[in-house]
């Protein structure tokens, strides 16, 4: 999650995820011989375990549904999401759900279902773009720090410490104040704030992987740094990152919601779940269903990423193997 640091980050001594050790040993020979085949085998194994985790699969199903809705929004939405279709109809605004408007209409007579469908696009965009920014920055600096060590490591990790010193809410508010409101700036703020954790996890993974014999062998054979990082270290060190990134997507969706509440997110009239929730919140008393619509959508999608992330962690964690 980007909005709070994961407990794991606080655990002194847990810096190097030990759980990669046996995993690597087990697959080492295989990886050396037939890397592609080995990796496929690993992921086939992970997928097998994931498939038997009901909650993770539920999460995955929600995510697939969310992405499909976002992709095909124009075909699914019954109305234009910003057209105030019912504004001049007597009693047309804040209608309860009906056959004509499945989820009712909002305070400006717009179709809530259509807004919800289009709003999913913003959530998907924020999730993907923000986490992509964190990943690019985090992996780059994490790799630099972990692989080369020395002063590069010190400088990068001290900068990461500075980022850790800011609770994310404070950091995001500060950045958004400088950049101004808007979706692009939400991407940047959330993305930039997320790099430090990824860099730290990745650096830890690299440190634990790089002393392995096959990496040393590759080095002895004269492979370039980037080749070693990409071909030898990455496939193994990436696993905890995948788990973290999955959860971060949920965090980013949530962050968009509270930034919108502060008036800093996606600007109206373009619907996002965050600005819909903020807009419908005042009607909690007279038209309570309104706030539950975007609210539920946010909770479900964030939940989906958490469940999938959990499932992935369990599936990737070999110590749990056999217990499922």
């Amino acid at each position: 999650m980007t909005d709070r640091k994961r407990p794991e980050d606080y655990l002194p001594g847990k810096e190097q995820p030990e759980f990669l050790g046996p995993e690597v040993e087990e697959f080492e020979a295989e990886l050396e011989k037939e890397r592609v085949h080995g990796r496929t085998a690993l992921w086939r194994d992970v997928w097998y375990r994931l498939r038997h985790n009901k909650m993770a699969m539920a999460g995955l199903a929600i995510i697939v549904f969310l992405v499909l809705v976002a992709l095909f929004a124009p075909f699914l939405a019954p109305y234009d999401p910003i057209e105030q279709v019912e504004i001049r109809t007597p009693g047309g605004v804040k209608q309860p759900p009906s056959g004509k408007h499945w989820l009712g209409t909002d305070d400006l007579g717009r179709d809530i279902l259509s807004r919800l469908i289009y709003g999913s696009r913003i959530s998907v965009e924020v999730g993907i773009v923000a986490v992509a920014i964190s990943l690019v920055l985090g992996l780059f600096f994490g790799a630099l720090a972990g692989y080369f060590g020395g002063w590069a490591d010190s400088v990068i990790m001290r900068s990461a410490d500075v980022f850790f010193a800011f609770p994310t809410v404070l950091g995001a508010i500060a950045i958004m104040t400088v950049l101004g409101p808007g979706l692009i700036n939400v991407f940047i703020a959330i993305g930039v704030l997320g790099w430090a954790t990824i860099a730290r996890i990745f650096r830890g993974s690299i440190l634990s992987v790089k002393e392995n014999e096959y990496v040393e062998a590759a080095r002895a054979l004269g492979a370039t740094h980037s080749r070693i990082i990409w071909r030898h270290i990455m496939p193994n060190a990436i696993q905890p990152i995948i788990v973290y990134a999955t959860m971060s997507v949920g965090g980013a969706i949530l962050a968009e919601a509270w930034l919108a509440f502060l008036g800093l997110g996606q600007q109206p009239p373009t619907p996002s779940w965050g600005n819909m929730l903020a807009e419908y919140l005042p009607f909690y008393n007279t038209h309570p269903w309104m706030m539950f619509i975007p609210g539920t959508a946010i909770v479900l999608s964030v939940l989906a990423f958490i469940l999938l992330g959990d499932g992935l962690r369990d599936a990737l964690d070999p110590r749990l193997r056999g217990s499922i």
Partner: protein
Amino acid sequence: MLLFILRRFYQTVIVVIGVILVISLLMASLPGDVARMRAPKGASEETLENIRQKFNLDKPWLTRLWIYLKGLPRLELGDSFTYKRPVMEIIGESLPWSVKLAIAAEIIIVVFGILAGVISAVFRYSFLDVLVTISTSVLVAMPIYWIGRLMQLFFSQWLHWFPPSGAPPPGTGLLGSIPYYVMPATALAAISTAYVARLARSSMLEVLRQDYIVTARAKGLSERKVIYKHALKNGLIPVVTYLGIDFGVLIGAAVLTEMIFNWPGVGHKLYFAVIQRDHTMVIGLVFILVLIFVAINLLVDISYAFLDPRIRLGEAPEVT
């Protein structure tokens, strides 16, 4: 040991300097003319110039930074633009409220988080476990301001159990104050409670797999004794560590909670200082908050090093 403490201390100083640089950088690049915002409407250029001089806005960025840094060791954080009073004074008024709220939240986290985590670890894969997993996940997935509003709706407006917002008025006794704390503290605690539950669960599971537990069981100790006497003590070490560090976060990250519940703490002040671009106030508040946060981290790390010798021996990569 001394070396470890010294090294951690040195790291902390670097972090604090970095934080000040980052904040000053952010503040210096804010859009708009601060002097004009502070001046009366339609003020002359001369008046604006006076304001700039008074608050050192006319000086280059580095000079301003230097002036500010000089005052820091004596905790001279300057005067707030909006309050026209020393920032330290305002922090003095609001920080106790944030600390009190954080303590209340911490109590909730400890009780419910650990309880839920231990239960779901002991009854792994049972209905209770699934319930805890799902409910903690839902808590994490909910926007905190929505939790706050829903609580106000249910517990205050419908059930009239707690006052909907605000701090206890001056002169309220300890017992009378409790109702004021319940909802904001619960909202603030929600996310951390969920994390603690998960952390406690996984950490307990790990401990329960350890050899000595297996031995204890083999020796025929009752399950209850195994859990309470052996597993819990070791299983909760990471939880306690997390709780320590989280305390700093609870003080500094309560912006939304304090807004929704009109709680007169630091987060509340900080949000309004940011939007009113009260530079000195923002820098001062964040500086103090970060100071608290890193100080707590430092303490937790040092005490952890006392407890677990592996850490201080390790030339291992630094922690936190």
